[in-house]
């Protein structure tokens, strides 16, 4: 007993020391902070552009305008999130160590989720482009599969944090793990689940880089183009569009969560 306590202290000490060392190493490598001369002129030019958005871009009868771009983005994001939202559930369930008692299963699932997360979006996109060609469909698949890693991880960790007393009650009635999960864990995790899924929806809407690479349309490509030729008025209006879109999602998200809290 006392010996193991000593061990615990030693381990804690080692961990603290390790963290400390990492921080010292990280900060030691930093150069000093200095401001640049050009900053005022360049930044005021950027801000001036952003604050006088290119209203003409909002609607264009030709079809490639902000509204259409946002609509495409929303469609891709919804579908991508939907796929991920469904597919992540079994992984999240099996990666939660308070639900799955089998350490190997938990480990394997956590590994799969980590693997999906480190798989770069662009390589994932490439895989799907080869399968279905560039376009929205590939975008949806890349977002849908890519998001499983994040959703699975966050949800499994929030499952690991729930209050287990209700779970006991279900176990006592003779429920198997799945039933226990549905009746005791799901109601508690649901608000978090929706919060994560809605967050992912938002991330997907902003996933300009991947969608731009894929040629999936949406608002990402024009944004990247505008940024790379420093067309700040255009950037301004697109940003405005995204902010409005994200705010709407945020409002819906809190409404949805309010239902479940």
């Amino acid at each position, binding site marked *: 007993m006392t010996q193991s306590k000593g061990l615990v202290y030693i381990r804690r000490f080692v961990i603290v020391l390790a963290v400390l060392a990492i921080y010292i190493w990280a900060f030691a490598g930093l150069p000093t902070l200095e401001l640049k001369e050009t900053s005022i002129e360049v930044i005021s030019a950027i801000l001036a552009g952003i604050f006088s958005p290119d209203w003409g871009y909002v609607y264009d009868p030709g079809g*490639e305008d902000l509204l259409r771009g946002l609509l495409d983005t929303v469609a891709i994001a919804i579908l991508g999130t939907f796929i991920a939202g469904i597919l992540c559930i079994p992984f999240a369930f099996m990666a939660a160590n308070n639900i799955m008692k089998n350490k190997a299963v938990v480990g394997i699932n956590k590994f799969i989720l980590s693997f999906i997360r480190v798989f770069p979006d662009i390589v994932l996109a490439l895989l799907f482009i080869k399968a279905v060609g560039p376009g929205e469909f590939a975008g949806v698949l890349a977002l849908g599969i890519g998001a499983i890693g994040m959703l699975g991880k966050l949800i499994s960790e929030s499952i690991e944090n729930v209050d287990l007393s209700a779970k006991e009650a279900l176990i006592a009635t003779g429920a198997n793990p799945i039933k226990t999960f549905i009746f005791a864990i799901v109601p508690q995790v649901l608000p978090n689940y929706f919060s994560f899924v809605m967050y992912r929806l938002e991330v997907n809407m902003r996933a300009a880089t991947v969608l731009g690479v894929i040629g999936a349309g949406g608002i990402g490509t024009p944004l990247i183009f505008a940024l790379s030729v420093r067309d700040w008025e255009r950037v301004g209006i697109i940003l405005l569009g995204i902010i409005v879109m994200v705010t709407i999602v945020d409002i819906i998200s809190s409404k949805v969560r309010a239902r479940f809290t």
Partner: protein
Amino acid sequence: ACGDGGSKETDGEASGSDSEEGDEMEELTVQFVPSQNADTLEAKAKPLEKLLGDELGIPVKVSVSTDYNTIVEAMKSDKVDVGFLPPTAYVLAEEQDAAEVIIQAQRYGVNDEDGSPTDELVDSYKSMFIVREDSDIQSVEDLKGKKIGYQNVTSSAGFVWPAATLMDAGIHPLEDMEPVTLKGHDQAIISLLNGDIDVAVTFQDARNVVAGDYEDVFEETRVIEFTEPIPNDTITVRPEISDDMKEKITKAFIEIGKDEEGQEIIRDIYSHEGYVESQDSNFDIVREYEEKVSKEVN
């Protein structure tokens, strides 16, 4: 290398035409990757769809991508028929039997003195070494040991050509320099103005991109050297496409470049002024440079 199967079945039709060599193409898929040497760009696809569709008589699907690797892969899997590729990308794609050049884009040349456009159409551009006006660097020879802002190593204007120029002057582009990789030629120029780097390599003349944000950019910087010409963007097709079809596509693009309405569109969207036929040998120079530089760098 890979199977053929000419057409795209976006509408879910059965893929019956597997063995044919694309002569019965029902739809043409075109993808565009912006070249780095443009100072205006639009991410639009629809207008070109219409122009090309009218010329070819089959539906055309155009999309815009920001990364050439995906186009090449898509062409390898028969998902894209026509790609707009920058020169380096074309060479790499050709190595893998993924693409065959048919056309090169034309742009107006750039005045070496002040960066303004000339009225001569050319199918190549140059890259330049640029330093601050008050810098004591006068020529490429002075660059040794200086801090240089490159673009990604796959960039023709932002790395390969300038590196070759340095090598010609007896300077190793990485070991004899203090290299930084930057993203975007505009960032290179801003970093130069900031004093973060001593010399930037950009396409000619990237200062136009920054001029809107920083008025005095032309006064405060100085070009010390230009590189050899770099071939302009290509339009390439999948090799499996029938010669007949290739012919048609070539003609269609050249027509568009000549047509007044077409010209306006390709200028606005891709900053192209027109198209000329091209052949693979035009890109031997690219291969040569690639080889020369990559031997030293990798």
